[in-house]
């Protein structure tokens, strides 16, 4: 009988497969978890080089997409089964939580060793994202808890061909807010769309709002807002929100940006269907892949005030942390030091086309990418602040800006709503103490 055979075959198959998976244990082997699916081959190659150089085998294990990775790391933390090295995705409070639960080793000693030889190699702010200083609002002991593998920042891009078509000077991108709106008006006359960006992913909205806020009110007032001493109904914050309303009213945005995912926005800009884009430094390679002849330039987000300096969002692209519970902590830190040394960083940067975290590894950059690098010192990031906004407040703000962009809310209404959420969160926090 034919159908009798099937379980039998299955059984053999099963046994064969199960037999093949006896675990090879190696006590000196370093295991590293990551989510960077596009760098798998490169990391594997580096692992091989490290083993040849030091005799220590390194195993990179990839889990993607990043949401799945982040679940896995959280789950492994619950069972104390994290690998020797891993990356923490998410915001600084997540990193703080991992540290406070004893999962992340403090590598300050290594980083500052020999008068900070290692520290000096790296871009300052991306490294700072992994550090906690005295009196930080997270309650984390002072220290360095991770190393950036690469860096990035987010700026505006403009299409030079479309500028020419609209009679704009392709070498003089708009600098002020007024210039920006005027340029958009001219583009619109020619039927050319304005700004495109993946604002369906709300963090990009948060990013632009933060640029505006820093430019209008500066760091101290933003900090005071985080502490609850300045309200979101303050005229400066309303002003930030009004800028979004203005973009909507002036038609300065491409169709559908409110719900667009960023990969779609990248297609649109690469195909010359919108004049401006707001995107991270990785976009240079994305655009190059989709349309190598795209003629475009980088510009800072338009200046909306002269009171405070212009800033951009940026910092580390990805970070690696050492597992505090690993028996191979020193070896793991040594490996990370090797990984961020010049030679490896050059290889990593050229292979994966990301910006290296090692300043000395910046070689042969395309001119546009070089412009991004030059602005690394302008970067700000919520992770660089001593304390963070309540996540629910940020969510209400960014989602609310979407509502402004579709004309459902006014800036004043939103400011009041955001403040109401903030008040509730503060109240909850007080009740806990």
């Amino acid at each position, binding site marked *: 009988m034919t159908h009798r055979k099937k379980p039998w075959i299955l059984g053999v198959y099963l046994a064969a497969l199960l037999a093949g998976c006896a675990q090879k244990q190696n006590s000196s082997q370093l295991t590293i978890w990551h989510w960077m699916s596009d760098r798998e081959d490169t990391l594997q190659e580096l692992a091989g080089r490290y083993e040849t150089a030091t005799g220590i085998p390194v195993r990179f294990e990839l889990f993607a997409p990043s*949401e799945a990775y982040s679940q896995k790391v*959280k789950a492994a933390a619950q069972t104390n089964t994290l690998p020797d090295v891993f990356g923490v995705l998410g915001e600084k409070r997540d990193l703080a939580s991992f540290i406070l639960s004893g999962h992340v080793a403090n590598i300050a000693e290594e980083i500052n060793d020999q008068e900070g030889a290692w520290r000096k190699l790296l871009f300052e702010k991306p490294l700072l994202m992994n550090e906690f200083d005295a009196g930080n609002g997270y309650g984390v002991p002072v220290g360095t808890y991770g190393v950036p593998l690469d860096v990035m920042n987010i700026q505006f891009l403009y299409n030079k061909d479309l500028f020419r078509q609209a009679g704009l000077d392709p070498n003089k991108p708009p600098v002020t807010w007024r210039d920006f709106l005027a340029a958009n008006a001219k583009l619109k006359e020619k039927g050319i769309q304005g700004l495109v960006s993946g*604002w369906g992913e*709300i963090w990009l909205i948060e990013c632009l709002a933060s640029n505006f806020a820093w430019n209008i009110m500066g760091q101290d007032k933003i900090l005071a807002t985080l502490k609850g001493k300045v309200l979101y109904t303050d005229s400066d914050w309303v002003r930030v929100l009004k800028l979004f309303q203005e973009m909507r009213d002036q038609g300065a945005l491409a*169709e559908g940006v409110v719900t667009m995912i960023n990969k779609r926005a990248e297609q649109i800009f690469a195909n010359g*269907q919108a004049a401006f884009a707001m995107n991270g430094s990785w976009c240079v390679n994305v655009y190059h892949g989709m349309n190598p002849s795209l003629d475009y330039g980088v510009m800072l987000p338009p200046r909306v005030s002269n009171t405070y300096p212009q800033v951009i969002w940026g910092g580390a692209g990805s970070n690696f942390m050492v597992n505090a519970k690993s028996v191979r902590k020193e070896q793991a830190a040594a490996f990370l030091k090797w990984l961020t040394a010049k030679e490896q960083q050059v290889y990593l940067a050229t292979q994966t086309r990301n910006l290296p975290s090692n300043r000395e590894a910046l070689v042969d950059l395309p001119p546009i990418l070089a412009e991004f690098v030059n602005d690394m010192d302008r970067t700000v990031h919520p992770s660089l602040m001593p304390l963070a906004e309540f996540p629910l407040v940020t969510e209400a703000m960014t989602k609310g800006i*979407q509502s402004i962009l*579709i004309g*459902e809310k006014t800036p004043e209404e939103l400011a009041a709503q955001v403040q109401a959420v903030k008040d*509730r969160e503060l109240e909850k926090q007080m009740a806990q103490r």
Partner: protein
Amino acid sequence: MKVRLKDTFENYFFILPAIVMFATFSIYPFFKVFQLSAYEWDGISSTMRFVGLANFWDIFRHNTVWWTSVWNAVYVTLLALTFQNILALLLALACDRKIRGGHVYRVIFYLPPVLSGIVVGLIWSWIYDGNYGLLNHWLKAIGLDGLTRSWLSDPKTALTSVAVIHMWKGFGWGFVILLAGLQNIPRELYEAARVDGANAWQVFKEVTIPMMIPVFILVAILTVLGTMQIFDIIISTTGGGPGYHTEVPVTRILSTMTGTSQFGYACAEGIIFGILLLLVSLFQMRIGKTFRQAP
């Protein structure tokens, strides 16, 4: 008496493997979700704070966004229950009747469920695009310029547009079940009805519908469960926006869990959602029973 006891005992053996699986892999996560719903926890920390029913209380009292998301899912579900299932039934009837090329159609109609969400997201965001979209292109071609818009970001059309994608992707499931149901009706019944002089419509009304009621109920319940839990299409097209116009319960649970790191709160949302679904399903089964007993 002894025989009957042994008999009942034997009957349990039929469900024993399923119970063993359930007891091993479902009860503990179930229990854990219930337990966590009473805590404030970020999903990482080794300490958590007991808050009792506060999470539930907050959802009922303050969380209007959550209830908006439930309503959005209900709206999509109502559309799916009608349009998607009618489409599936019509196609299943057509294929049941041996139309020309029926065996080819049977394969083609199951293609949308097979397609990856990435392809579906790419294609539909291109169809719906405001400036370069196919839909607007066609509307202009037939002179309906007034209707063109950016379908996924216009608050008036965003949710319906997402619902259309979902229904297109989902009708294949219903089609396959309904076709199997139709094929399970003994042909003799049709022949007998024909001999009695019934026309096509009467055959459908007197034979097909009564025989199919259990399958209809099955498909209806599966549609409700499948559609209420919609989320991947939304994440790859609108991300829940604009504003909260396309938020649904699962996207809310996910962003509560990872976006704002309120793990316990997300569990509470999950439980409320689960109970809602269970109630709806039981209600549907009850309707099914009344229907079956009626004729």
